[in-house]
């Protein structure tokens, strides 16, 4: 079957999975598409079904319903070894009795490639992941980050059509996580491999993803681009999960909403939300302390979080959270003002809260 140009590279349609009755967890219908060179992040708390979805795509689980089409061909009926994809897990699962080189080239060996060609390819890929000269080394000589890079090299050397990442950096320290994230971005750009990554780390997800799917208890909460999930949460749970600290009551009328922060303009995509009582969601970084502002506030407390200071302020009897970049010290009870640093606000009808 020829792939039509208009068709996305990966199409997942109505995929469902029910574990054995004893486990009772089921993954509701999931559908999404993914283009080459894009990274889809599946986000969600523990037990939301994100790893189940990844295992269904990998072929480690068989779906009850639905189909997966990759490169124009259905793959949902194929065993994992015939799907031409690769997966990186939390642990590297490198074979401890083999050298770095033997681990990297194992996928090529399985395909029957002659040893001299395997070695050339493996050394090339080790070079690309910053491990030049590591071919002969034993695994015991590697650090955690180096092991993850060997696992990455092992997955890439077979030139998979799709790379799946199941919380691959969760066991690394923060510095290494950032470094590995940057490796993944580089590889995505250079190799144009579509990737699907599962994580519960919001920061990592937002830094790496092009598309997002947020799951909770086996059901999709929201999917879309970075802008969608960052600015436009679909419901209160997603807003909380994405770290939106301020959810305020308001009364919507047409394109305006009245809140204790004043009369605010509604986001154009929220015009269809019925007029009346609504909730507006405000990221804490969109609020700023400003002594000259007409909206008066009293400081309730502040705490430094490493890169920013989280300030709690009382505005017209309601509490709001404000993030100030860097270290700031405000005394409790101090009188100040609050300014909204966004031209419009996102609002949700009260019934979806």
């Amino acid at each position, binding site marked *: 079957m020829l792939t039509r140009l208009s068709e996305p590279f990966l199409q997942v349609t109505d995929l469902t999975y029910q574990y054995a009755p004893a486990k009772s967890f089921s993954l509701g219908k999931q559908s999404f598409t993914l283009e080459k060179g894009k990274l889809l992040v599946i986000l969600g708390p523990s037990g939301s079904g994100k790893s189940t979805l990844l295992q269904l795509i990998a072929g480690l689980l068989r779906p009850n319903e639905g189909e997966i089409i990759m490169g124009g061909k259905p793959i949902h009926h194929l*065993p994992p*070894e015939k799907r*031409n*994809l690769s997966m990186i897990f939390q642990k590297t*699962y490198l074979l*401890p*009795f083999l050298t770095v080189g033997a681990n990297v080239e*194992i996928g090529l060996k*399985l395909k029957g490639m002659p040893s001299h060609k395997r070695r050339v390819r493996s050394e090339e890929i080790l070079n690309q992941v910053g491990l030049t000269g590591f071919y002969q080394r034993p695994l015991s000589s590697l650090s955690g980050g180096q092991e993850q890079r060997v696992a990455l090299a092992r997955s890439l050397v077979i030139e998979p059509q799709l790379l799946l990442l199941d919380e691959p950096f969760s066991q690394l320290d923060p510095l290494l996580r950032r470094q590995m994230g940057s490796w993944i971005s580089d590889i995505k750009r250079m190799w144009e491999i579509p990737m699907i990554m599962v994580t519960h780390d919001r920061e990592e997800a937002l830094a790496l993803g092009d598309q997002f799917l947020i799951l909770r208890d086996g059901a999709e909460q929201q999917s879309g681009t970075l802008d969608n999930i960052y600015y436009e949460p679909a419901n209160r749970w997603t807003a909380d999960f994405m770290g939106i600290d301020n959810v305020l009551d308001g009364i919507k009328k047409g394109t305006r909403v009245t809140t204790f922060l004043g009369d605010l303009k509604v986001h154009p995509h929220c015009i269809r939300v019925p007029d009346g009582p609504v909730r507006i969601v405000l990221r804490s970084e969109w609020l700023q302390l400003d002594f000259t502002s007409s909206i008066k506030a009293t400081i309730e407390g502040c705490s430094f979080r490493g890169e920013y200071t989280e300030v709690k302020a009382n505005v017209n009897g309601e509490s709001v959270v404000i993030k100030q970049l860097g270290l700031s010290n405000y005394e409790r009870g101090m009188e100040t003002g609050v300014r909204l640093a966004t031209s419009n606000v996102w609002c949700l009808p009260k019934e979806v809260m």
Partner: protein
Amino acid sequence: MFYSKSKPIRLMILSGMLVPSLLFVAGTFFAGIFISGVQSLDYFPLIGKTTLSFRVYIELFHSAIFYRSLFFSLGISLAATFISALIAVILALWLRRYVRHGRWLHFLLQFNLPVPHVVGAIAILLLFGQSGLISRLTYWAGMIQQPSQFPVLVTDQNGIGIVLEYVWKEVPFIAVSVLSILKSWVVPYEKQLQLLGANAWQRWKLVTFPFMLPSLLSSSIIVFAYTFGSFEVPYVLGSISKPTLPILAYQAYLNPNLTYRSEAMAINIVITIISMFLVIFYMKWGEGYAEKRR
């Protein structure tokens, strides 16, 4: 009273507390080895032999009966170990699919572990003897006309009965140690390799077998060592005319002529030396190998 801030002193106190039990365990063991050793060197004052010599060993190593028993024992141990390991691996690979029924299967697998070998040997005798249960069943079924037509499986010249008992008893022992590896941490490695394109045979060759090998090797060495030095099973199920090495030592020991006592002790020392080599193999290829792979 027994506390000290100094680590060497604490170690000394701890060692001192262990001395009584160590003396009892190691003392009796080494005393036995020592007595066997000197008696095997022809030192037996009770019958007037007060000089040390290698006469018994020289005679032993020129004796056809000794070599026949030695190779018979080695053959039985090798056959029992190999067959047990093979069946245990097949059983473990089959059982690991049924993780959900793990408790029942584990019970069924392990129920014969606490049963003494001698009980197993008697059971084999009652089952597979020419007048045993299976012989009678085949007679009633009309498959044989008289008990003597049933193949000689116990007290036979080939040690089939002995091997049968060892296999019955040791298969669960090896299977349990292999199964624990197969059921837990080898699975994600197999999945990882499958995602790299490995079919079932390639996964077995590259992951499953190398990972189970250390526990298979160490449990097989234990089985070999045990079956080689075991006395009671060949005593019940072996042929008098073709004894294994421990039986040969026992026959010499029981001989009313006390000059045979040195021969019994020399055979014991040979068994001990072979067992010590097996301990070294176990340390190097069993435990040591497993440590290296972890």
